[in-house]
């Protein structure tokens, strides 16, 4: 295997392929940083260009886009307070406050470094444990997936920060939103006889609408607010390299744990990388000595989120390479590239095309390095976004969101979805309803319903959820998670009354729709 890897490394290190990777990474970073554009769209755009390339080049540029895209999501999250992709939602919680406090460069730098480490660790997991993980994931059937999603949903309690009831309301609303459209047996629900509603709501316009609109409207409201502390903060748009390295070094366990969570969750079928950053952030908070600081702009939160969402990249290759089954849409497209070149991913690939497999590993690593180098250069410019006046920024960002929403499926209706949920998001925010549980519900709703009903179709007994060991484990974890979160909530609420309402989590000093 080693000779194949060195051979692959030499192929990937050739100037033309390196150039392609760099182009891919740049494109991915820029695509990922535009709210609504996302990794998936970037890959879709690059996809046709790979037809004319040889397999190694084609795969390398796609991987470049992949790695760049997952890292680009943090830019819009930190600078605009709008997650660039669903997998960067929790980056906003600490990234944006840190930027608002005057350290956007530091936030971006931490995110980039955490992304790099996350990618590298996930490649190590992929190479060393790939086949083993794949075999294990075959035990992950509808019962396990349902209970894992249930566990992810219990994170709602932790994401609501003292407003537990409203958080649960939001999550329930999110789940309800996913019921619009055809259900799994082709019965239509809530379409009000409009064909446009028959496919339901696309997650992305909903998410961008809810987060972007409320954030942008808040920015505009702040413009008129003369007492806003925001105005008095001097923006440090330089990159404090030494401080960033110190931040990461102080968070070694957090980084490792988050990367592993991302790799594992990315490797499991049916969950998707979006869940990874929620679980990772939640775990970082639970294991931290000062959980109440999460959400005020501490490095821990950024690291937890970015390390895990980049680790998903390596993790999602596990089922793709080991089993020949794509873990998610970007993987499916990647497989399309391979199939077009006459390579069928699957167990045979390791035997028939070991060089290509080596090229995938090599591209991931080289892509990660290229990503850091590109970001080193770009972050300086990204940080300056903080200096753009809101009057210019808000309309431009809204326009980009609309373009991103349309480009998703060439469907004009998605822009209306963006707008409609934007208004809903704004109203909810005004009512002090936490928005993240709502997004969590939207992201997980469809999958939960599918898996739950399939589990019951396969075996009509509810007891099976408890008799299958993994499934039972997740149920226990869910219960524990709820208990712990309730306790944490109580602590936070008591602290609030002690501080007399001046705690950093109070509404006026931090963006409200992040805990």
């Amino acid at each position, binding site marked *: 295997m080693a000779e194949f890897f060195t051979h692959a490394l030499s192929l990937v290190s050739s100037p033309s392929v390196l150039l392609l990777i760099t182009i891919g990474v740049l494109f991915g970073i820029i695509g990922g940083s535009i709210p609504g554009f996302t990794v998936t769209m970037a890959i879709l755009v690059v996809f046709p260009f790979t037809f004319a390339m040889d397999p190694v080049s084609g795969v390398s540029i796609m991987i470049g886009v992949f790695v760049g895209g997952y890292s680009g999501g943090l830019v819009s999250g930190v600078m605009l307070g709008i997650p660039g992709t669903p997998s960067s939602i929790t980056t906003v919680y600490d990234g944006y406050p840190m930027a608002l406090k005057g350290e956007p460069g530091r936030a971006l730098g931490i995110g980039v470094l955490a992304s790099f480490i996350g990618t590298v660790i996930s490649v190590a997991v992929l190479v060393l444990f790939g086949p083993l993980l794949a075999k294990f994931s075959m035990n992950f059937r509808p019962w396990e997936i349902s209970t894992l999603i249930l566990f992810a949903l219990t994170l709602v309690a932790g994401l609501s920060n003292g407003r537990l009831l409203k958080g649960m309301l939001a999550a329930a609303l999110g789940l309800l939103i996913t019921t619009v459209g055809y259900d799994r047996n082709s019965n239509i629900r809530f379409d009000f006889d409009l064909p446009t509603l028959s496919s339901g709501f696309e997650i992305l316009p909903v998410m961008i609408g809810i987060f972007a609109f409320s954030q942008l409207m808040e920015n505009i409201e702040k413009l008129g607010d003369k007492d806003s502390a925001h105005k008095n903060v001097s923006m440090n748009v330089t990159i404090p390299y030494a401080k960033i390295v110190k931040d990461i070094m102080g968070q070694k366990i957090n980084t490792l744990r988050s990367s592993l969570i991302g790799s594992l969750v990315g490797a499991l079928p049916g969950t998707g990388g979006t869940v990874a950053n929620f679980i990772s952030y939640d775990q970082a908070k639970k294991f931290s000595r000062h959980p109440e600081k999460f959400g005020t702009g501490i490095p821990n939160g950024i690291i937890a989120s970015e390390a895990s969402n980049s680790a998903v990249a390596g993790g999602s290759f596990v089922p793709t390479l080991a089993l020949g089954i794509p873990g998610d849409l970007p993987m*499916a497209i990647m497989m399309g590239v391979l199939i077009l070149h*006459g390579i069928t991913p699957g*167990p045979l690939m390791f035997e028939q095309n070991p060089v290509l497999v080596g090229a995938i590993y090599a591209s991931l690593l080289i892509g990660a390095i290229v990503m850091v180098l590109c970001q080193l250069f770009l972050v300086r410019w990204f940080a300056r976004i903080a200096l753009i006046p809101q009057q210019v920024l808000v309309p431009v960002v809204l326009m980009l969101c609309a373009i991103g929403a349309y480009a998703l499926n060439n469907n004009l209706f998605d822009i209306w979805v963006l707008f409609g949920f934007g208004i809903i998001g704004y109203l909810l925010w005004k009512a002090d309803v936490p928005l993240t549980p709502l997004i969590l519900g939207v992201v997980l709703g469809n999958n939960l319903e599918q898996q739950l009903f399939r589990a019951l*179709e*396969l075996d009509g007994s509810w007891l099976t959820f408890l008799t299958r060991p993994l499934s039972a484990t997740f149920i226990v974890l869910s219960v524990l998670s709820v208990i712990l979160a309730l306790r944490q909530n109580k602590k936070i609420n008591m602290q609030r009354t002690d501080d007399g309402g001046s705690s950093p989590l109070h509404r006026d000093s931090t963006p409200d729709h992040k805990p």
Partner: protein
Amino acid sequence: MKHNKIISIIFSSTIAASASAFSLSAAADTYPEQDIRMVIPYGAGGPTDIIFRQIAREAEKELGVSIIPVNMSGAGATLGSRNVKDAEPDGYTILGGHDNIALSYIAGMVDYSYDAFAPVARVTQTFNMPTTYPAHPVMDASEIPQYIEDHPGEVKFSMIPTSTDHFFWMQMFDAMGIDVADVKLISYPDTTEQMSALMAEEIDFTITNAACCSSFYADGTFRPLGVAHSERLSGEALQDIKTFQEMGFDMESATSRGIFAPTGTPQERIDILADAFETALQNADLKEKLITELGSEPSFLAGQEYQDFLQENQHSLEKVAENIAF
């Protein structure tokens, strides 16, 4: 003077009218002048997407303009098909679809079928095969009825509701004399999920085809049990698979992919498109790719023949549907 003026007006307007008439036919002569949008109502990277993209790349060379694939998935492929159905019938929007058009209609999801389109040409036929996992006792499709008898009510078949494989099973049960009440039909959203379910031995049988799974057949991860066609398939991994006919069942089933235009598209433009696809499908490299890598037989059909084929196709699907409760 006035007389002259009137005459000159009539004269110039006649010239203008005939000039525009010429330019209209001139426009027809120069079709296509701009890029053509080909809507693919499925996700990128999937078998339908890849097949159509490959063929379009070849057909582009004949047409002299680009064919731009536009993925528009959703609502069981009806989002994309509806978009083309309602598009301008100027020959610049076409649909890459298959039997699903009729199936969605039969399932009651939409109120239109093949007749809402102007069919351009059939391009490929992909033959579907019941498949199982290696540890399973059933070795080929002829053993399925007996296996069901031995395990009544327990045998699990996976399918994507209202899709081609759902109908395949119903046709097969009919041909083999199997009662739907004796088996369990479990629904999955797409082929990928069915493949992982089969690998995990969660279900007994699923439908696969060479587009997704030829390497899995080759290394033994999946066992194809038979092909619903009159002849054996070509290609190393596929030629040993028995046909249903050889096993004594009379059944033909394939996914027939084709190009459709909105009704009202001028016939000359449809013909130009059909010719381009016909020439594309004669390309040896493309044929090779379709057969060996995508498990599909290039089978061009256009004009009245294609219309007849579609009518027959819908008719036989409707017969099968009588046994399905939607």
